[in-house]
């Protein structure tokens, strides 16, 4: 691993996201080591015939080594696109139009296609939702795994095979020697996802971006995968960005949470802060919508309406049409601002944040 020096505190800041970046950096200096990944003012837009879709619009966050960051949101909130942007996987008509993404101080946006290719699958790995879509159905597992190693390192095929086998053992696949010679369709969904995780781990990445990896799995299998991921991130010290719509997964797994809505992060903080005293009405609404949190049979508190089309959001807070706190002021886009106990790192983007009395 090339040990690029940690990023310096003072950096050119983009105009609108400026305040929040500085705030995040100062919190980072107090409580955490320099972040592994720093995303600031990221904007990813899709230029379609119908208009510009602002899939990711001014997103800033940091991830430290060994940290699990939960990126939560509903479909269309831009959480996956944020992950894809970091990986450099945005295809036309989409484009990252603004912002900086630094991995260990190196600007990802300034990298050439070849440099990015060297990075992907090596220092940054991604796990996708549907392992059947990401594994090549006509290649055996051993080939797919050694390919990943040989693409980044000059090692002998035997060494690569041995490492592939070790990775399968690490993710808890029984009889790895046999399974290496199997094809993806011969695996169950949970086992396939384990293989996908093993492939992601092959080159000891610094950062793993997991895009809803357990959504397609049964609860007991989801439990097993979460257990493995928790263990692996602890053992390897890799930072994890866990993209999900499932608050209960985030609750048990993540250190910090970013809640996204309509392309923007609307709230960020430690998992405890965000889940116990959310400040943004959307976060509160999301928590209220979870059936297991309300008494059995009682009417769920629902968020009225639906997520707006990203085509015609206009200015202002995208949540205002569904929000019971909304006032005329909400026609103006709220800026990300720190709230609550200074040092807690909780930030939100709302003109009328919720107040909690008993919060120390």
């Amino acid at each position, binding site marked *: 691993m090339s040990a690029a020096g940690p990023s310096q505190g003072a950096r050119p800041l983009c105009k609108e996201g400026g305040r929040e970046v500085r705030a995040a950096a100062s919190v980072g200096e107090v409580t955490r080591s320099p972040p592994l990944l720093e995303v600031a003012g990221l904007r990813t837009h899709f230029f379609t015939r119908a208009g510009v879709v602002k899939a990711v619009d001014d997103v800033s966050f940091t991830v430290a080594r060994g940290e699990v960051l939960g990126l939560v949101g509903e479909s269309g909130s831009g959480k996956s696109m944020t992950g894809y942007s970091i990986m450099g996987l945005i295809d036309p008509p989409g484009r990252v139009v603004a912002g900086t993404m630094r991995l260990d101080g190196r600007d990802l946006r300034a990298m050439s296609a070849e440099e990015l290719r060297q990075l992907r699958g090596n220092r940054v790995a991604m796990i996708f939702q549907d392992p059947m879509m990401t594994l090549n159905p006509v290649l055996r597992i051993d080939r797919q795994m050694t390919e990943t190693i040989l693409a980044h390192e000059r090692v002998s095929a035997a060494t690569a095979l041995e490492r592939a086998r070790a990775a399968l053992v690490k993710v808890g696949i029984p009889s790895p020697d046999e399974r290496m010679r199997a094809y993806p369709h011969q695996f169950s969904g949970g086992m396939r996802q384990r293989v996908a995780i093993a492939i992601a781990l092959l080159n000891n990445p610094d950062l793993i971006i997991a895009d809803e990896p357990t959504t397609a799995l049964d609860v*007991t*299998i989801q439990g097993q995968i979460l257990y493995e991921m928790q263990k692996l991130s602890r053992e390897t010290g890799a930072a994890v960005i866990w993209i999900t719509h499932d608050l209960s997964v985030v*609750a048990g797994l993540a250190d910090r949470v970013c809640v996204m809505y309509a392309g923007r992060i609307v709230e960020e903080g430690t998992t405890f802060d965000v*889940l116990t005293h959310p400040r943004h009405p959307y976060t509160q609404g999301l928590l209220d919508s979870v*059936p*297991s949190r309300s008494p059995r049979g009682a009417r*769920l508190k629902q968020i009225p309406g639906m997520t707006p089309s990203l085509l015609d959001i206009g200015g202002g807070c995208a949540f205002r049409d569904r929000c019971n706190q909304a006032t005329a002021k909400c026609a103006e886009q709220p800026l990300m601002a720190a709230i609550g106990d200074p040092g807690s790192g909780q930030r939100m983007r709302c003109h009328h944040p919720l107040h909690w009395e008993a919060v120390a």
Partner: protein
Amino acid sequence: MATTASSRRTIGRTGVPLVELKGVSKRFVRTLDAAAKIGNVFGAGLKEEVVHAVDRVDIAIEPGEVVGLVGESGCGKSTLGRLAVGLLPLSDGERYWNGVALSSLRGLQARTQQLKMQMIFQDPYASLNPRMRVIDIVGEAPVAHGIIRPQAKTEYVGLQLNRVGLDPTLMRRFPHQFSGGQRARIGIARALAVKPEFLVCDESVAALDVSIQAQVLNLFMELRSALNLTYLFISHDLGVVEHISDRVVIMYLGRVVEAGPAAGLFSAPNHPYTQALLAEVGKVEPKKRTFAPIKGEIPSPLDPPTGCHFHPRCRHALPRCRESPPRLREVAPGWSSACHLNDA
């Protein structure tokens, strides 16, 4: 949570159930093709592959009740749902509607009977014909069954859409012009258009976002009281099932392992599988959890374990669990569980 037991309704297990399945089984058989038959003549010894998707299941659903059917993928819960509404023929057993055996009905009688049971499917994208307009998706069945005259279709479909919270002016649109939550509502409107009494919801909210899921769950509850509906609610999401159900049935590999009142079952599960399943329910509590999953995966239904199907994954397995399958036995009034441990 589970402790706030709702005493809204105590559904006694008396009276005639609205829907009853007795000893229902479904086997899917892959018959031998010609080549395999010729092979067998020469002693290849090939056998037909039989999957016991549903294995002698008894379920009784009282009028107005919501029964949650829970299990992991491949446990046969969707197949059971399809058997219950009659979308699949039974291999064994009998279905009863208000005590009348459904196999005894013929012709018009059977057809009108069939309308009383409808199904709402999982995938709001795949279950709506992309080339039909909403007015036809919702209005086709009531016209075909003579519930309304063709001229009344527009008005009738408008009423149906209103009831599920959709703007009737959108009825000339195609499914792809709607969001996932709206499509789920179209699916519900379609099922309700023929005035059913019993609905099977097969993972009907699984594809929806949390906030939309809450809306649709609330809609289900409203419709239930407004139209006096009875539900068989199939889901793998225990949080949803716990919220909506009066009674819960847990399936594992084609068999019912436990069935009981939702409040009791979620607070004190009897069967080891139910216990393991409930331990996995994600709670939205910001506490670092140590995930301690049950080992292994659901075995192949082609070759299920002997005895109790759960014994290879069960931490309490006894020698006899390997040999004889446990019967469903009552552990409390209206609550039964299939586990040998209960005999001890």
